[in-house]
């Protein structure tokens, strides 16, 4: 469908070569008590009609602020300079009336968090119709009809009913599609999508990206896609700009930037990414240091302090964003620009040539030489630590024989009661968080537990540690059942079983020093003050942090550093098993790589067993030996990492792997996909038979009615398909996806 809209200034476009949005020298400064914060510095780009431009960068790089500035949505105290022309019309500095006519009509925006983007007190229909009515003189009936039409376009099932519902009655994925519907309501010329899928599960992300594509086709709008996810960029956009410290540091077609990056930062970012199409053996190369504070930006190139090839000139003179030599030339849509004095040296360079695959905390370091010194120091410290350890427990010897099974779970079931709110707190139902999970964790191996939100993976992890009481089933550690142990009897065993958390901010007590945090488990287990102190500095060194920083408080550390502190705390009791609950999912990629390297090193050196809980299959593929895939409280497939990724058998696993975007433009656009529809059902009321059947592509498209009946009636068992590869599907068939 198409809708006519008035376009008064349409004539102005002719001389600007089909450019719909032209941003030039846009700068944003926020005032603060400690002086002005330059969040965005001289950003310029052009977007042509129907084109998709990606803007990538880590948190704090200014990518979102740029788009907010274009939309005029920044708080009043922000100082915006430069220009943004939409169809030739300047839109920076417009008054409320003028900008209101542009917003929603010519340029629309989609925000990151669908759960908070819609007003909770109005119906979906009202909120979409409102967007229509803001720009067109039509009746409410017509606006509602348009709302219905839009919901159909973005693929929301039973749209008439949805119109009358409130946002809280819809899932996150559906709400984001509603926001997309609002964005396309008036056929805008540009849609800015700010991390539109970051808050969503991968299978839902794929659906929302599809909806976004449909919106573009339908409206012919150009897309500015802002994201930190290089995989999403690779699949969705034509051109990409890389932002760092408030500037665009590289820009070009996706193929150019992904295959021939000419700015060390872009190269480093790609190298620090665990890849679904990579190998278990590949070491990741984190980028040294941390993004600079906007308050005191370095004098020269913003990336110079972290750059392995930085020279004198880099520290003195800020490089301009220039066309690279021998690349596609200006005028062509694929012009490739980079802001680096020495970009020609990067021709044919690999990330591993430039960056080191270190596991020390590089965020506190200032140069490559310092990092080498720190690495040598840490290696020495680790040797000493291992020497001490060797005297206590002879784990090396035990490892030679057949790996011992440490932790076993049989038929774990956990139901959380849903209680009424009154004084009586009657039980009104239950959430079946975990419904019959069996697994075992062997010595020195990494078992990954993967699945989307609500699949029960974190609950399973806590059941294994006996942190919550199970409803039925059995957990045993080295043959000893845990589920009936009292807190007191459990305490000695807790030394061996430790936990690392997802949120590096919430997992450390803000009122305790780092030393006290790391020493706490030892104190609980009766260690003396002095012994604990000594071990704390050993542990800090072990995880690659400066042992002198023990007297600091958690808020003085970055996310990656805090996660290292969390690991040090978990290691303080010298455990044999570490349960890692999404340990790297809250971190920026360039930081994440260092923590992953650390975990790998520690496992090798200390002989640890990891239960690695994650939703990120790329990280899992990189770190795990075996993988168990969970869906709605059930295990649907388990195999070695190689088996699972090379020949996934369960339709859910296949969909999950398909949904992970590859940071490789060609592969990402040409790969075969198994997609699922709909959202994850509520674990309070799971489907009968096979729990995946409501979203299963095989069930929907391939099976006969008779075959389907079996899926509805009979819950599939987890069956061995040979060589330990087990899946729970009546009609499973392994296929190759990567």
């Amino acid at each position: 469908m198409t809708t006519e809209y008035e376009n008064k200034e349409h004539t102005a476009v002719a001389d600007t070569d089909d450019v719909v949005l032209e941003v030039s020298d846009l700068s944003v400064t926020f005032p603060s008590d400690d002086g002005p914060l330059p969040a965005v510095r001289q950003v310029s780009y052009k977007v042509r009609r129907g084109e998709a431009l990606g803007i990538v960068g880590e948190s704090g790089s200014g990518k979102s602020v740029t788009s907010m500035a274009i939309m005029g949505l920044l708080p009043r105290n922000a100082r915006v300079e430069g220009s943004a022309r939409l169809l030739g019309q300047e839109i920076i500095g417009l008054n409320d009336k003028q900008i209101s006519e542009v917003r929603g009509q010519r340029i629309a925006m989609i925000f990151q968090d669908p759960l908070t983007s819609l007003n909770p007190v109005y119906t979906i229909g009202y909120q979409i119709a409102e967007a229509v009515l803001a720009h067109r003189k039509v009746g409410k009936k017509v606006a509602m009809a348009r709302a219905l039409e839009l919901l159909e376009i973005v693929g929301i099932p039973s749209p008439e009913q949805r119109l009358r519902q409130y946002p809280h009655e819809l899932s996150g994925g559906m709400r984001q599609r509603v926001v997309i519907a609002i964005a396309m309501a008036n056929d805008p010329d540009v849609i800015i999508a700010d991390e539109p899928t970051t808050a969503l599960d991968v299978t839902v992300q794929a659906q929302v990206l599809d909806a976004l594509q449909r919106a573009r086709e339908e409206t012919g709008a150009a897309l500015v896609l802002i994201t930190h996810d290089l995989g999403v960029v690779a699949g969705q956009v034509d051109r990409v700009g890389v932002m760092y410290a408030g500037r665009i540091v590289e820009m070009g077609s996706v193929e150019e930037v992904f295959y021939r990056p000419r700015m060390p930062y872009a190269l480093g970012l790609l190298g620090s990414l665990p890849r679904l199409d990579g190998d278990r053996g590949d070491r990741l190369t984190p980028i040294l240091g941390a993004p600079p504070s906007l308050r005191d930006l370095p004098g020269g190139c913003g990336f110079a302090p972290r750059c392995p090839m930085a020279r004198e000139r880099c520290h003195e003179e800020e490089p301009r964003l220039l066309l690279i030599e021998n690349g596609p030339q200006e005028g062509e849509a694929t012009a490739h620009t980079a802001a680096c004095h020495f970009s020609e040296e990067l021709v044919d360079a690999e990330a591993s040539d430039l960056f080191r695959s270190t596991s020390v905390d590089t965020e506190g370091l200032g140069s490559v030489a310092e990092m080498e010194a720190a690495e040598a120091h840490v290696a020495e410290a680790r040797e000493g630590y291992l020497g001490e350890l060797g005297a206590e427990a002879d784990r090396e010897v035990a490892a030679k024989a057949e790996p011992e099974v440490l932790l076993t779970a049989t038929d774990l079931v956990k139901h959380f009661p849903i209680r009424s709110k009154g004084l009586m707190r009657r039980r009104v139902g239950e959430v079946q968080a975990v419904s019959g999970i069996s697994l075992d964790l062997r010595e020195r191996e990494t078992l990954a537990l993967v699945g989307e939100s609500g699949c029960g993976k974190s609950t399973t992890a806590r059941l294994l540690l006996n942190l919550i009481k199970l409803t039925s089933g059995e957990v045993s550690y080295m043959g000893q059942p845990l589920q009936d142990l009292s807190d007191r009897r459990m305490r000695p065993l807790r030394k061996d079983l430790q936990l690392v958390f997802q949120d590096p901010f919430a997992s450390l007590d803000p009122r305790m020093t780092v030393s006290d945090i790391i020493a706490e488990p030892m104190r609980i287990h009766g260690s003396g003050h002095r012994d604990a102190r000594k071990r704390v500095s050993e542990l800090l060194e072990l995880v690659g942090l400066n042992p002198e920083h023990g007297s600091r408080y958690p808020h003085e550390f970055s996310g990656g550093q805090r996660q290292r502190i969390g690991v040090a705390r978990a290691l303080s009791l010298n455990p044999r098993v570490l349960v890692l609950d999404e340990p790297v999912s809250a971190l920026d990629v360039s930081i994440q790589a260092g923590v992953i390297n650390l975990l790998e090193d520690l496992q090798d050196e200390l002989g640890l067993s990891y239960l690695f809980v994650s939703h990120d299959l790329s990280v899992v593929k990189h770190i795990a030996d075996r993988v168990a895939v969970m869906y709605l409280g059930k295990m649907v497939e388990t195999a070695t990492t190689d088996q699972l990724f090379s020949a996934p058998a369960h339709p859910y696993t296949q969909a999950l792997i398909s949904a992970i975007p590859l940071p490789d433009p060609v592969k990402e656009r040409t790969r075969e996909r198994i997609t699922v529809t709909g959202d994850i059902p509520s674990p309070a009321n799971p489907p009968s038979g096979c729990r995946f059947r409501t979203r299963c592509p095989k069930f929907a498209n391939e099976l006969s009615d008779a075959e389907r009946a079996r899926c509805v009636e009979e819950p599939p068992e987890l069956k061995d398909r040979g060589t330990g590869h087990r899946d729970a599907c009546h009609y499973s068939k392994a296929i190759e996806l990567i």
Partner: protein
Amino acid sequence: MSENGMSKSARRDPAKKRKKSSADQTQLQTILIRFTRHRPAMISLVLLGIIALFAFVGPFFWTWDHTVYREIPSNQPPSGVHPLGTSAAGHDVLGQLMRGAQQTLKVAFTVSLLSTAVGSVWGATAGYYGGRVDAFMMRVVDIFLIVPLLVAAAAIAGNSGAGTSWSAIALIISIFSWATIARVVRGVVLSLREQEFVEAARASGASAPWIILRHLLPNAAGPIIVAATLLVAVAILAEAGMSFLGLGIQLPDISLGQMIGSARTAVSTRPWLFYPPGVLLVLICLTINFIGDGLRDALDPRQTRVRR
């Protein structure tokens, strides 16, 4: 410890240097610095200090105390001998004011301490155990919250005739004000106990008292301190109201509320009896509220900037 280059880098890089210097501050110092940057709170603190000196040290340096003297002429407007005038019965108003402020402050701070002690324990217990224990304990809190504080306290004080001593008044006000603290603490503890650092302690085998004492209460300290401060102001107004009704502190002892009460009919005829105690009362409450506001800004970790 060998040379590892880490501390060296801290010296060279300006960004790191700043980090280092902030690392040398303890959290307490950070809070203090943030508090001192809150100008109204700082002014209030100084002012409250002066008032406290006036109330507690002042009587030692002033000729008259709060009792009746035969040599004091009645109903005199302010003069050199009696800077704030005299009452009908023959009180020196300045002497009364000192004693009144003293009693008022004693009552208010006692109420705050008592309520905070009881309320924190009650709220923390309810919050930590949750479930039915919490539901029941908070219902009890609700009951104390629905009875109007001033009236209930006045009813008991008047009914029992216990109202003459400041400690009895403080006790009675506390009975009806601990519930607000309990509610605040319970809310904080409820969200704290879901935090991962509490789970981390449990995963290491920490017991319930260990968690409450080492994690929950220290982290709830900020909101508790703020609520306790604001409660001081509430208690002052409650005591003043009771005394005004003649159901609080009674003659021959004196409080600011009682002074206003007895000067009620003399607003236009003998204003020196009516205005000074009121102004002092307002000043005390105002300073305490500003201090509470400053503390909130300083203790709230989400607070990034301190302006005003």
